[in-house]
């Protein structure tokens, strides 16, 4: 009998258990319907899409684990330290194993969210005008996402609808060719340009001009890959099916034309201009230029698109890693970004415009000798160590902390050695000599807190330089990761001018006289007074110095297929200031950065490996 009653209870529960009141909505989550029911909810969702977007800002982690919004300890391995711009004082970043970009999953997650947004727009209770703008914004974000995917992987699956788990054909979407992918991005941007509004007062959201700026950048990237693929051709299944490469010179010309067209529209709109285009002298030019990166809000005429930071802990760590050892206060990590001498060499002098000006240290003028100090060579002597950089382009001192220059009201002592009265040299080692009551220290001061270079500690530069661009003299390091809140300029007018002139110089299309004018406009803003002609060499040098440390160099090396030739068993080099006690003057030695190895960029790194190819049925990139 007892058995029957238990059975009855089970039957009862089975029959009546599935009541609606048991279908509870989770109370700690917001459903899609609720989220999009209000304007604020929709805006919050949209803000999150911007947050996820692959904006290559201060929190872009390019190495080991490709990611965005990286706000914890990344060892100071910022993208600039993987290029010929700078080296990290602690970790020789470029030696760290394979080039792994892990943005496949996050990229397609973002893509899914954007697709969801596309589906929601028609259901919103807004007027058509506003729906159009949202549609344009969604197109902009979609293009941004696919741009990053195309840069990393070449041709990728183009997924514009959310997949249906019951229908395999919507889940296993094969890769498009690289050309189709670029064309898709450009077409998506064309829609964005039509749909978006042209008000550019809010620099942190997409508008017509940000879409044009992105199109200018995308088209230049695609054109360069098409034109220069042959510099580093690959082979394999992905190449045979044109999933990477497979573009012709005609495609290159077409993409250059797109770049010229988009850039020209933005330039001709007169919505933007260079910030402080007419400096009275190079010192003023340097200060204007520096101020713009310290606080982009002062230059609305130049800035097109910003990634802003407001809250400590939700900012970034650029200045925490970048601060000099002397000004780091109680913060333990500093001095990580060490610009290379070969990068400093790129800056022209005012007296010899149109040519890079390698820093000359010896009377024979041989700047390719990196063998270190050699007492038999005749070194040039300087009373003031800054004199060796005199006459150099103003942007150098605005971008780089030079040895013995001022920062935060202090002289930043970067000295690598002394030559004693008996002629012996102590270089990159501790040592001192007292002459007539004055003690001279090899590193320029008595204790490590009082100088900033060559101690072979992570906090001291190994190259003789530190980065000044983006730093704020009013910032005091606090012991919180990501406590810097200076904004990141993602697009600025100067880049669009540089894109335009590169496309003109490369393709012969467009207006060469205008391009030359733009080139000299940018140089004029930097204090140059002599015009130089439009040549590819001039354009590329100008691009390197104007966009220094703005995370553009890494892609320039990739899209122009120059990485493997620039980094072919390459050493990176330092400039070591040495005080000669005999003459009481400074000399400089060009040498390999101590403790580093050569690095080679294998050609397969031009594309990154796609994860999970055994399950997602995609064709893997060459040599992975």
């Amino acid at each position: 009998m007892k058995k029957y009653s238990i059975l009855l209870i089970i039957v009862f529960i089975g029959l009546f258990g599935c009541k609606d009141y048991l279908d509870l909505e989770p109370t700690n989550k917001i459903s899609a319907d609720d989220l999009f029911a209000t304007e604020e909810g929709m805006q919050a969702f949209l803000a999150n899409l911007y947050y996820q977007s692959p904006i290559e800002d201060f929190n872009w982690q390019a190495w080991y684990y490709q990611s965005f919004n990286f706000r914890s300890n990344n060892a100071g391995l910022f993208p600039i330290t993987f290029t010929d711009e700078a080296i990290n004082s602690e970790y020789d970043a470029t030696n760290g194993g394979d080039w792994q970009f892990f943005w496949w999953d996050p990229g397609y997650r973002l893509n899914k969210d954007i697709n969801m947004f596309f589906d929601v727009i028609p259901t919103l209770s807004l007027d058509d005008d506003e729906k159009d703008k949202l549609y344009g914004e969604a197109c902009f974000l979609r293009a941004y996402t696919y741009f990053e995917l195309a840069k990393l992987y070449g041709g990728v699956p183009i997924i514009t609808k959310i997949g249906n788990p019951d229908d395999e054909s919507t889940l296993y979407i094969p890769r498009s060719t690289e050309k189709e992918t670029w064309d898709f991005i450009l077409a998506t941007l064309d829609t964005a340009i039509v749909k978006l509004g042209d008000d550019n007062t809010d620099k942190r959201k997409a508008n017509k001009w940000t879409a044009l700026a992105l199109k200018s950048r995308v088209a230049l990237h695609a054109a360069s890959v098409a034109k220069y693929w042959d510099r580093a051709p690959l082979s394999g299944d992905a190449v045979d099916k044109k999933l990477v490469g497979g573009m012709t010179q005609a495609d290159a010309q077409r993409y250059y034309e797109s770049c010229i067209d988009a850039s020209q529209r933005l330039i001709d709109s007169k919505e933007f201009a260079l910030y402080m285009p007419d400096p009275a002298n190079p010192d003023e030019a340097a200060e204007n230029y520096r101020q713009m990166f310290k606080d982009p809000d002062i230059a609305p005429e130049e800035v097109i698109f910003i990634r802003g930071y407001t809250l400590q802990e939700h900012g970034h760590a650029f200045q925490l890693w970048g601060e000099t050892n002397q000004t780091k206060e109680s913060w333990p990590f500093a001095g990580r970004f060490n610009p290379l001498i070969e990068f400093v060499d790129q800056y022209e002098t005012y007296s010899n415009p149109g040519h890079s000006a390698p820093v000359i240290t010896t009377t024979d003028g041989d700047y390719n000798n990196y063998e270190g100090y050699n007492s038999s060579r005749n070194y040039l002597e300087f009373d003031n160590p800054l004199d060796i950089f005199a006459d150099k382009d103003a942007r150098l001192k605005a971008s780089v902390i030079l040895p013995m220059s001022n920062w935060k009201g202090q002289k930043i002592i970067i000295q690598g050695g002394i030559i004693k009265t008996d002629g012996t040299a102590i270089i990159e080692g501790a040592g001192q000599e007292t002459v007539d009551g004055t003690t001279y220290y090899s590193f320029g001061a008595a204790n490590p807190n009082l100088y900033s270079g060559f101690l072979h500690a992570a906090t001291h530069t190994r190259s003789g330089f530190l980065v000044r661009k983006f730093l704020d003299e009013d910032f005091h390091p606090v012991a919180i990761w990501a406590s810097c809140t200076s904004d990141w300029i993602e697009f600025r007018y100067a880049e669009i001018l540089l894109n335009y002139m590169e496309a003109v110089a490369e393709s012969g299309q467009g207006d060469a006289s205008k391009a030359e004018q733009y080139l000299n406009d940018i140089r004029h803003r930097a204090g140059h007074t002599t015009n130089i002609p439009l040549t590819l060499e001039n354009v590329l040098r100008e691009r390197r110095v104007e966009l220094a440390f703005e995370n553009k160099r890494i892609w320039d090396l990739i899209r122009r297929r120059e990485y493997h030739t620039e980094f072919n068993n390459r050493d990176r080099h330092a400039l070591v200031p040495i005080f000669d006690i005999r003459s009481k003057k400074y000399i400089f030695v060009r040498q390999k950065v101590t403790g580093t190895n050569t690095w080679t960029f294998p050609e397969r790194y031009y594309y990154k490996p796609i994860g999970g190819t055994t399950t997602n049925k995609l064709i893997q990139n060459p040599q992975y």
Partner: protein
Amino acid sequence: MKTKIIYIIFGLVFTLSSCELLNFDGPDAQFHGAIIDEETGDTIPQDIIDGSTIDYIEQGFEMPEIQRLIFKVDGTFRNNLIFSADYKMIPTRGNFFTPDTLSIHINPGDNKHDFVVKPYARIKDVTPEIRALRGKNYLVVTFKIEQVATEPVKSTMLAVDKGPNVGRRINERFFERSINRVVDPDANQILWLPLENFTEGQEYYIRIGALMDIPEAKYNWNKAIKLDPYTLPMP
């Protein structure tokens, strides 16, 4: 008591017998061999890092991964942990003309296969010597390049290291020189390095390489030459 014993026996039977199907066999074969110059019958010297590869695909999978073997500097290769199965194999992206894809069956146990190919170039008559020039001693190496490929020679390289695995990526010092032309097989080529940074009494190995201007080509090398520290006059 009886039921307990029965349960225990059942339990033992299940746990001891149930997992058999899930135990896959480990790699049961070894595969080794060399890459051989079809004309001279010698092995073709290689780079270890970023050198030539043998791509191989195990047959019978829907989405197989391409697996790779690399060479030792002497042009031999060995994989002691490979599964016995049918494979498609191709030595590729190397310093030789890529041959047709081969179907190779790997049996359990030892398998040897030599790939016979045509190298892009051969390095001949390598002669290292010490020469003094303007008061400085140099290691000067003369050699000849016999081109097999008709493309221009892109560059030549002298690589020096303390070990015999010296090559493009493994070296202490190197000198790479752009050539960009087709070279005469009888013409003496020359490469040099200043001796001042060599350590006295240290053994060094040198190799000479020539890189052909062919997509994805790797350097063609000579066999490493050991410089005897006693005969090498150090400055």
